[in-house]
């Protein structure tokens, strides 16, 4: 039996919206192997972002359990979750990424500094080099293009060497060419540093980059969930 870096068991999340109960997640069993690059595809409102939030410890499930790197997230309080995110998770969001007051370099090293860790300058430089951000080190986020901002977000997600990178529609605001570049870099960099990536997208083409694709509809995994059955 192989161990998984991410594992959810019968995950459920119900919202109360007005008089209706919205089932954002309705019994999701989702597993990710170490160093895998997994895409989750679904329409908007299918629950894919909620699933990602659950894995990242941003949201609390109504029912079910989430294990990340062997740790049960349900057992942690808010404070511990924040520390957990800082050390184990790198987030990349659609348009919700950089701290406006800090320059690019400071943004990238933020999770490391938040943990009071020494910044491995060589490593950061390597990442920035890979992501072609070397010249923009001192720039403030507002002066960067969308693609550059997302690349910076990737750099930040990787900088603290987290176990897993969670990307929520990272190219949602970008044109096709830069989307491809950004995701390619994500893939190249993740491969280089042996990181696990869970990517959310509604774009089949983008999902092609990944090792495995999982489809989610109305809060349930409809295809690809059983990829490991029988192994």
């Amino acid at each position: 039996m192989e161990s998984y870096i991410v594992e959810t068991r019968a995950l459920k999340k119900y919202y109360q919206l007005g008089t209706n109960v919205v089932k954002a997640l309705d019994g999701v069993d989702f597993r990710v192997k170490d160093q895998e690059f997994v895409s989750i595809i679904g329409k908007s409102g299918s629950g894919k972002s909620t699933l990602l939030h659950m894995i990242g410890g941003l949201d609390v499930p109504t029912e079910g359990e989430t294990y990340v790197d062997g740790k049960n997230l349900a057992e942690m309080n808010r404070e511990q979750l924040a520390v957990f995110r800082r050390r184990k998770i790198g987030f990349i969001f659609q348009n919700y990424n950089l701290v406006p007051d800090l320059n690019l370099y400071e943004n990238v090293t933020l999770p490391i500094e938040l943990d009071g860790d020494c910044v491995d300058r060589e490593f950061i430089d390597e990442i920035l080099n890979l992501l072609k951000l070397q010249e923009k080190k001192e720039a403030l986020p507002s002066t960067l293009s969308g693609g550059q901002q997302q690349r910076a977000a990737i750099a930040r997600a990787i900088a603290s060497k987290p176990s897993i990178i969670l990307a929520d529609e990272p190219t949602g605001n970008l044109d096709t060419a830069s989307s491809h570049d950004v995701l390619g870099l994500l893939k190249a960099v993740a491969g280089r540093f042996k990181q696990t990536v869970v990517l959310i997208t509604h774009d089949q083409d983008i999902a092609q980059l990944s090792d495995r694709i999982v489809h989610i509809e109305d809060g349930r995994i409809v295809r690809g969930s059983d990829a490991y059955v029988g192994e």
Partner: protein
Amino acid sequence: MRMLENNNRKIITKMAMSSLKGNKPKFAVMIIAVVLSSFMLFSVFTVGSTYFKMQQLQNIHLHGADFDAVLQGGYSEQQLNRCKGNQDVRVAGAGGYAGAAVKTDADDTLHTGMIWCDETYWGVMMKPARKRVRGYYPKKENELMVTKAALKDCGKENLDVGDTFDLTYTDQNGTHTKNFLISGIWEGYGEQQLFYVSEAFYKKTGYQLNNMGVLHVKFKNKILTEDQRTKFQESIRLNKRQNFQFTGETEKSAGIFAGMAGLVLVTCLSAYLLIYNILYLSVSGNIRYYGLMQTVGMSSRQIRRFMKTQMMLIGTAGVGGGILFGFFTSFLVIPKIVRTLGIRESAIPVTFHPAVFFITISIAGLTVYFGSRKPIKTAASVTPVEALNYRLTSAKKKAHKTRNGSLIWRIAADQFFKDKKKTGISVLSLAASLSMFLCLITIIQSHGARTIMSNYMDTDLVVSNDSLMKEEDEKWKPILKPSLVKELKKSKDIREVHPLLCAKIIVPWEPKFSDVWMREFYERWMYTPYKDDINDYKKHPEKYYSVMQGIDKKEFEYLNKSLIHPVDQKLFESGKICIIYGPGMDLSGEIDKKARVKFYLSENKNKKFQPRIAGMTDDSYYGRTSGKGPAVIVSESFMKKYVMNPYISKLNIRYTKEYDDETEDRIRKNLSQSTSAKDVSYESKIDSMKDIQKAQGNMTGVGVGIALLLALIGLMNYINTVFGNIQNRQVSLAVMESVGMTEKQVKKLLVREGLLFAAASLSLTATAGLFITYQYYQTMNYMNIPFQIPVVPVLAAVSSSAAVCIGIPLAAYRIIRGKTPVAERIRGFD
């Protein structure tokens, strides 16, 4: 088990710094608020500490000792112990009249008294008033503690400590001559023509502390409430003869203290509201930011620390700046303020008590802390998911029926009542500054009125012949001659001249009136008991002389109006009745209506009169005589009939043109040319007006300054609310525009909202603010001046605040909207 904490604080400080740098305008406003309020606090406290210190110093200089209250008319051993045992009392020292020096071989007209005082009074209470002491306080009967002035009075100015001299003195037991040793000599403030004597000496004088002793009390607290005072007075059980008085300043300081407390409170409130408002707006505008920080792995503790660090930086910069600013301006401003509060010492060194720094820092710090507590809590409790889905929405709105009335008014009212908390804060802040303005301006204006009204008959100039104050007849000089009066009357610049005629009279002892008078007079004004002097008075009434004063018709009319029971003019003119001047005395219970005052002229014993006493006046215009007898006021015609050449003691002059500088200068020049110009003094309306103007100018300046500072804080608060408000509503405003609201209509809407703000804060000021002003006014109102609001400044304040309330939303709209097209604004921005 406690573990070593993670060493991740540095980044928080760094982020706080860069956040401050990135949001300069917002934080600058906060820093300014803190600077202003700590400046205000610092100044208020410094004024307070300087004032109280100077007041104490002035008291000490005036009285020659440091005490808050004095018990006159003797005291019992029991009372002394009660005072000393009272928990509010720091020290109580006693003294007593021990006789008077009569003559030495060098001088036989001595004016030096002899006083005994106890160790506490000499060693503790008088100590701060003394500059230098050589020798020691007398221990033996024949020892004296002297001053240079007292020695000079004795013609012995060359003597020093250790020397001896013969001195004749009187005491209860008679006149004695003794050889005294000078045990010590002192210099300092207070009564100089005194010899301090030993206890052994005092015991032999025959005086009793029971009726001649004076007890001085110094309290632990500088400020005693009315309640504490009465309680204390009750606790020492005064008898009828005793008189317990607090020094005037003690009373006044309570009012000043209350004013200071009020100022501090309003300042803190305004600063608190502003900080709270700005931070709250900034937090709710930055929800996404805090959410982002949490996804990156910032724990809520770190967020709290982040914001606290920011507030620390703001607080430190603000308080530091404020104190520095206050420190430097206080050298310029504070002496003036303290002077307007009634300190007349020539040099007023600004006192920086270390506690002032401490208190300012802690109060300003607490204000910042409490202002930021709630917003910090909110920021730390933001959950990342909340933040991810967050859009700037204001408070939740319930579904409501569509009301009738103008659409724009309706929207404006909805907006006004939507976020009651924010609205409330800015209204409160505006109202606080307006109320402060109202309170200050009312008090300052009435202060002016109070001072001006004290002038006698509202005349322009009163000239006095001071030589008539002297005891010896031969020194009286007719400086103000009838010819001068005639001359003045001729001048067309002068409308009226009223001379006050004066002649020395002697009121002999008789039981019905003069005895009553003297008894009351002694009780009121003399340290010695009447019974000591009663025989002397009977034998030598000329020592207890007095004056008869003649007034003309106009003056009589004025005086008559001020009497409780006006007297008949005809009888007064004929000299059948008179009016008695009694300084602070009330004989109404002691004498009947038919009482007459019997007297004769000093120059001619045969000219005897006995007019009926028809009334008594307390107007100090008729005072300033040195005799002990009652001053009798009669008509000018009566006076002229019986007195050959009456002296003119005062001239009461009114100019044709009020405040006529030239005329006054001419009169003064004219009088100063006479040989005895030294003995003429003036009471000029122009002078007092200048004094008042100066004092009032300072007060108004300071008051307006305070009101402006508060107004600035209130204004910043309002600006912040409005900017935040319009920023939040950008989308809804844009939607309105997209469905056809013209820009003009949007502006109309904003104007109405501003009007609502103005109306709310003004009505709050008109109710609560006015109430507080009235209450405070009444506590300060010693003179019973009717409460009146100065119309012009208040109207100006009302209109300017209304203008500001309307102008700011319009400006904010213009700035925020810019030239962005509607479509983009509908989308809003992240």
